[in-house]
């Protein structure tokens, strides 16, 4: 087919077996209304899983830092007993915080991928498909959730290996899945929103670096809110990471937590993030 000399007129040159094209002649029946959203979310999540299947390097390298936090920081402070944890070993207290942290670290740089996809024309092409922007962003947000979830699984296994007393109640683990995905949806949308404002990878990288540690330290991931100075308590209260950690602690360790409030805040934050990111996506496409 490719070797033949060019024929400009459509009726000239070789004939093509129509059976080869059969399916490509009929446009698919469009999904309508709210059925579009789940289909796009699934499509984006599948892409993420396929990429992880092809290249697991990131999964392994990203496991190093949480492992060090648990192994060195966790073990040391467990012996020191410097931080009041309400009667549980410090490493147990720390584990949900590190799970949330590693999930956040993945999501907070998700906007870099969006900018890269923009530069590569991948995003452009997705924007010319019958996918509303909010559906595309939701898809990306949940795809980052799936990626973070797999990372969280690795950290949970490390924690379990270090003797942290985690629950194996399937219902509570399902709750953990939802919490991790919602938290990641928020942080990835925060990242995409910033991407929509700053528009370049370098700036987003800098901002991402600048906000990850404050978000982490100004949360209850490392220490209880009660021992923070007053101003930091305020920051912690508006930091979705705190609610994510609180929920994870309640679900994984069975410590007292405010699950209803936590889920409420996380759902609200994710919805807010998706709205903000969708409205700024047009700036990236331009």
């Amino acid at each position, binding site marked *: 087919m490719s070797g033949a000399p060019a024929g400009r007129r459509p009726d000239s040159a070789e004939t093509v077996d129509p059976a080869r094209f059969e399916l490509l002649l*009929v446009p698919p029946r469009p999904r309508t209304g709210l059925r579009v959203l789940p289909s796009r979310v699934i499509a984006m999540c599948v892409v993420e899983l396929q990429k992880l299947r092809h290249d697991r390097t990131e999964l392994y390298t990203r496991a190093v830092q949480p492992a060090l936090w648990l192994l060195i920081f966790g073990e040391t402070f467990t012996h020191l007993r410097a931080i009041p944890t309400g009667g549980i070993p410090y490493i147990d207290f720390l584990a949900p915080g590190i799970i949330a942290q590693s999930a956040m670290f993945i999501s907070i740089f998700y906007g870099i991928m969006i900018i890269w996809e923009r530069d590569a024309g991948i995003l452009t092409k997705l924007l010319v*498909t019958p996918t509303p922007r909010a559906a595309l962003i939701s898809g990306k947000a949940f795809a980052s959730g799936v990626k973070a979830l797999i990372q969280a699984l690795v950290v949970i296994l490390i924690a379990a290996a270090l003797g942290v007393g985690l629950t194996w109640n399937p219902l509570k683990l399902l709750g953990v899945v939802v919490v991790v995905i919602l938290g990641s949806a928020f942080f990835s949308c925060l990242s995409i929103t910033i991407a929509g404002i700053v528009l370049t990878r370098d700036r987003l990288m800098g901002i991402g670096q600048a906000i990850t540690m404050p978000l982490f330290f100004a949360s209850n991931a490392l220490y209880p809110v009660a021992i923070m100075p007053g101003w930091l308590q305020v920051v912690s209260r508006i930091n979705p990471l705190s609610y994510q950690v609180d929920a994870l602690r309640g679900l994984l360790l069975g410590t007292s937590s405010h699950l209803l409030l936590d889920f409420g805040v996380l759902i609200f934050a994710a919805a807010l993030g998706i709205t903000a990111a969708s409205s700024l996506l047009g700036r990236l496409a331009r």
Partner: protein
Amino acid sequence: MTDGAVPAGDDGDATGTGDAGSTSDSSSGDSAEAVSCRALDYSFGDTKAVDGLDLSVRTGEIFGLLGPNGAGKTTAIRCITTLLPVPPDIVKVFGHDAAKEKMAVRRLLGYVPQQLSADAAMTGRENVTLFARVFDVPRRERAARVAQALDVVDLSDAADRMAQTYSGGMIRRLELAQALVSAPRLLMLDEPTIGLDPIARSSVWEHINAVRRATGMTVLVTTHYMDEAEQYCDRVGLMHRGRIHALGTPGELREELRERRRAEADEARKSGTTGESAETAESGEARSDTVPTLEDVFRDVVGQGLEEEGGTYRDVRSTRRTASRLG
């Protein structure tokens, strides 16, 4: 020949009178029109990228939008694909308004952007499957449809290799498969052969042609390779500074220029009586006898302005993006 002296404005109309089909260009809402733009404007800040573009692409044809970098081709394409916001009733795709019926327009389009846009971290098959999913291809026919799309562009054997192992020409063909999997009625290709070697270029075109023959879809393509336009396009529009300056089949445009040159030569012969002007008439005669190329037509249409302003009239979008990268 200066810009003002070129009968560029008249040319568009003159082309229409020569070709019966072209007379319908001005009529809008025609069902035979795949794409219609009426007085489309688009600016990036102070830079006018598209400036009063009138465009009519007929159903089933391969229409080539030709022009140098910065002529506004890509911006026009991005307006038609709903990527850039346009006012209502300016751009229509098969009668659907690009401002009011975005989803309907997108369902009719297969779009291949200028960059090689396949995702290198996935296999060819996965790349095509993604587009089958987002165009709502039902699960039961998804695999078969994806396989056909890959087969049509001769990538069946490489389908399960990672796209990062593909050559430039293969990636372009993969993108064609991505665009074809949703059975679009209009294929929009932005510089499909840019940066490809000659063999890959003709292979990409062969595949575009084969698909067009089999499906009867309309193809709107931009290129700055005049030879490609000449060889593969049914009609071309020569675009310069945001609008079309000449329109017709490549043959018509060349013939028209030849006629004009012949008329000029005649003019010169009539007025010239001395030996000196007879000589110029002679050379004019010679020039009018050789069939001009599309490139000659282009030079004739845009005049000398092309070289002179080439330096300042760069690709607006890439300039803008570079500027935004540098901050």
